[in-house]
């Protein structure tokens, strides 16, 4: 054997690709479809001078800068400039998520399931599986980048050029790979795939929020946020390759650290110390409800705190976001001081509508994770003995759905509350009442309940397909976050429950809609139980 540390890397890589090809294909389809599809549409959307001028004004508002990054192109503006400004930061999120998924999937997840142990017992090098994971990520990102660039070439947007198209594709590839490596690094530190996923998203979240802050305050500082490198590519403008070099350099450094850490730890263990557990269960751990609370304790706290912080971060820019005098002085002068105050508040409320959507989708995630655990823990065998206890399926089902749903709703409320608290501080005497913001809470919560109900039905009736549920928040987020800019037709916006909600908090709550949606959600949750009650449980 040539090099014993990396022996059989090629074989493992082929194995990984064989195992993951369908998932990789779907991610590629999603990424390229999104980019090329949007690119093909943009000429129609922003072809006219008027449409162009209006979108650029919108993109320059602090609210949009915080969501999508600054608009830095120079005149004369082209459709491609608008496209790059709208899509870059957003696509960065998507490729980062893809890399966190595959990074954990091909490293830590295999260790958890014991597959790595079997593999390592063969004539396979110590670093072979890590190398194979790394190569898989390079392949996934590299080819995704090429496909994206070709998609942009094919779309042939006005103002786009080959240099910009390739930089867009390959820049995203480098960006994705960088997050893939962050994930592999984190996978060495934490001791389970769940922990690795959570920690990776924490890194992504912190970097994203940092980027948001610097973009609104002073875009020059964005260089320090790592995430912001993707904006600095300046696609279709300067076409700057320097950030790509930064990304690849950081990727290489992280890769080296990852390999060093990997050789220092035991298979299946993390680098974080393993704490001793309790000798007895606390008095509090009594039944299924307290069990799920105990199991999800840390992640629930993390989600609640994270949503509050996210809300507060966005709220803190309300002062700038709602300042018409700064963002559109001509308009402010035109409508006068009194009207400006109202206009400012409307601006903030419109921004809050988008933010509420982000919060509600994020808050859905921990709720669904808890609900999906009903089947996941069954298929892992954790529940087998629980089922032999005097616990009815109804109690188990209710405990999990109640904990998941209430957790999600509280997380959402904290997001709104955080936004209100920081917003009030930032806006001073212009502050908007909490009750106005709470419209968003009452408006969107029913959508959360319906999403939860649909998921409950999947859990009950189609346990093996339950992960389809993730499409609802994912598509809901995409369609409403970018939908208005992509001018999606109404039906496409209404595919998920989030799209059934009116523009709260700008408008008042439509209690009729809220009422029937809540009822529908609760009926669906009940229906899910009927499915869960009458079928075989999953077994290990």
């Amino acid at each position: 054997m040539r090099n014993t540390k990396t022996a059989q890397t090629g074989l493992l890589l082929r194995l990984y690709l064989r195992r993951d090809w369908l998932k990789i294909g779907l991610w590629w389809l999603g990424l390229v479809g999104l980019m090329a599809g949007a690119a093909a549409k943009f000429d129609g959307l922003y072809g006219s001078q008027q449409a162009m001028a209006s979108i650029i004004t919108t993109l320059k508002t602090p609210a949009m800068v915080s969501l999508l990054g600054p608009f830095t192109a120079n005149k004369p503006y082209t459709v491609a400039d608008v496209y790059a400004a709208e899509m870059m930061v957003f696509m960065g999120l998507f490729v980062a998520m893809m890399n966190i998924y595959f990074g954990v999937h091909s490293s830590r997840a295999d260790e958890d399931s014991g597959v790595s142990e079997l593999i390592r017992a063969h004539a396979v090098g110590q670093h072979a599986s890590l190398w194979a994971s790394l190569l898989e990520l390079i392949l996934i990102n590299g080819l995704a980048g090429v496909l994206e660039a070709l998609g942009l070439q094919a779309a042939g947007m006005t103002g786009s050029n080959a240099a910009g198209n390739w930089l867009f594709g390959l820049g995203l590839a480098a960006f994705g790979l960088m997050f893939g490596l962050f994930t592999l690094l984190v996978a060495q530190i934490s001791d389970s795939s769940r922990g690795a996923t959570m920690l990776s998203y924490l890194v992504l979240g912190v970097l994203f929020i940092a980027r948001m802050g610097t973009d609104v305050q002073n875009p020059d500082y964005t260089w320090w946020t790592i995430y912001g490198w993707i904006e600095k590519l300046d696609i279709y403008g300067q076409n700057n390759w320097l950030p790509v070099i930064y990304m690849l350099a950081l990727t290489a450094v992280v890769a080296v650290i990852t390999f060093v850490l990997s050789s220092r730890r035991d298979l299946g263990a993390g680098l974080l110390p393993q704490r001793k557990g309790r000798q007895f269960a606390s008095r509090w751990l009594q039944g299924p409800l307290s069990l799920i609370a105990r199991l999800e304790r840390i992640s629930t706290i993390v989600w609640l705190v994270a949503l509050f912080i996210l809300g507060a971060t966005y709220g803190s820019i309300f002062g700038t976001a709602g300042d018409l005098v700064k963002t559109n002085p001509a308009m402010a002068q035109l409508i006068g001081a009194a009207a400006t105050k109202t206009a400012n508040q409307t601006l903030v409320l419109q921004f809050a509508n988008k933010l509420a959507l982000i919060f509600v989708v994020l808050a859905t995630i921990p709720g669904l994770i808890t609900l999906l655990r009903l089947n996941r823990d069954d298929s892992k065998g954790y529940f087998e003995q629980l089922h032999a206890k005097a616990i009815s399926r109804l109690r188990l089902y209710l405990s999990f759905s109640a904990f998941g749903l209430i957790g999600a709703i509280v997380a959402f409320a904290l997001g709104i509350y955080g936004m209100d608290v920081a917003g009030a501080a930032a806006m001073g005497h212009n502050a908007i009442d909490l009750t106005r913001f709470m419209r968003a809470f009452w408006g969107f919560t029913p959508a959360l309940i319906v999403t939860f109900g649909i998921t409950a039905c999947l859990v009950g009736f189609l346990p093996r397909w339950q992960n389809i549920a993730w499409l609802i928040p994912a598509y809901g987020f995409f369609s409403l976050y970018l939908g208005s800019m992509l001018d999606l037709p109404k039906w496409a916006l209404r595919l998920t429950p989030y799209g059934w909600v009116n523009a709260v908090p700008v408008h008042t709550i439509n209690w009729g809609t809220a009422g029937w949606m809540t009822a529908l959600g609760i009926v669906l949750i009940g229906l899910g139980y009927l499915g869960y009650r009458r079928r075989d449980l999953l077994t290990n």
Partner: protein
Amino acid sequence: MTEAVVTINHLQKKFGKFQALKDVTLTVNAGEVFGFIGPNGAGKSTTIRTLLGILKKSGGEATIFGQDVWTDAVAIHKRLAYVPGDVYLWPNLSGGEVIDLFLKLNGQKHSPRTDELITKFKLDVTKKCRTYSKGNRQKVALIAAFSTAADLYIFDEPTSGLDPLMEEIFQQEVLALKDAGKSVLLSSHILSEVERMCDRIGIIRDGQIIETGSLADMRQLSRTQITVTTTQSAGALAALPAVHGFKQTDQHATFAVDSEALGEVMTALAPLGVKALQSTPPTLEDLFLRYYNQKEVGSNAQH
């Protein structure tokens, strides 16, 4: 003592088109240890999971304490303790937490008996479950089950990861349950374990119960291995219908005899001048091999 605790009648279970249980009929009586044996994939765990209401039967009947295993699951489970073959525990809970939780879920408490079992099984309960080996996870489940006051104990290959010392403790505990008049359903591959503890056994193969009864009954149905040295040639015996796998070298002959025809063969053997005779009753292994391979047990003669 013939009151039935578990009654299974023509139980069937289909997974899609695959019929995992075709016809399972057996009874576990109060106060007995019932051994449930069969090759891998025969349907032991499926039967047990159906008994626990985890799987829903496709046909037939199954009751525990006279109550339906599906509709009355909660009532049944209050009086039952179970240890699965593969124990998986939430990785972020400690062994001690899991044991206490399992007790509480049945409305019981951590007792001195629990502590005694923890000491006996030598388990460090302060460790997180993710660090436990298979054997240690098994211990967690066993400690929780043995310290539960129940009327029926179900063990599904409970000792597969235990070391011999722990296996011995397991057997002692099961025998103690038996002395206390509890009922036990024990699925196992360890034949010595079954032979030592079980009053009756049921053999399952391909989703069908092919034999139930006490070990003595089954021996009766099986063949006894005979090794005999005679002054005259014993060759004539080979022709008897009850004699199988006859082999002869000089004056030594070895063969298997259907247990019910033993007397007949002995009568035929007597005039041949028996110098030495050794008879070996079938071991459970022999029974096993005989029932597991549907083929004739001609191989018996090769011992």
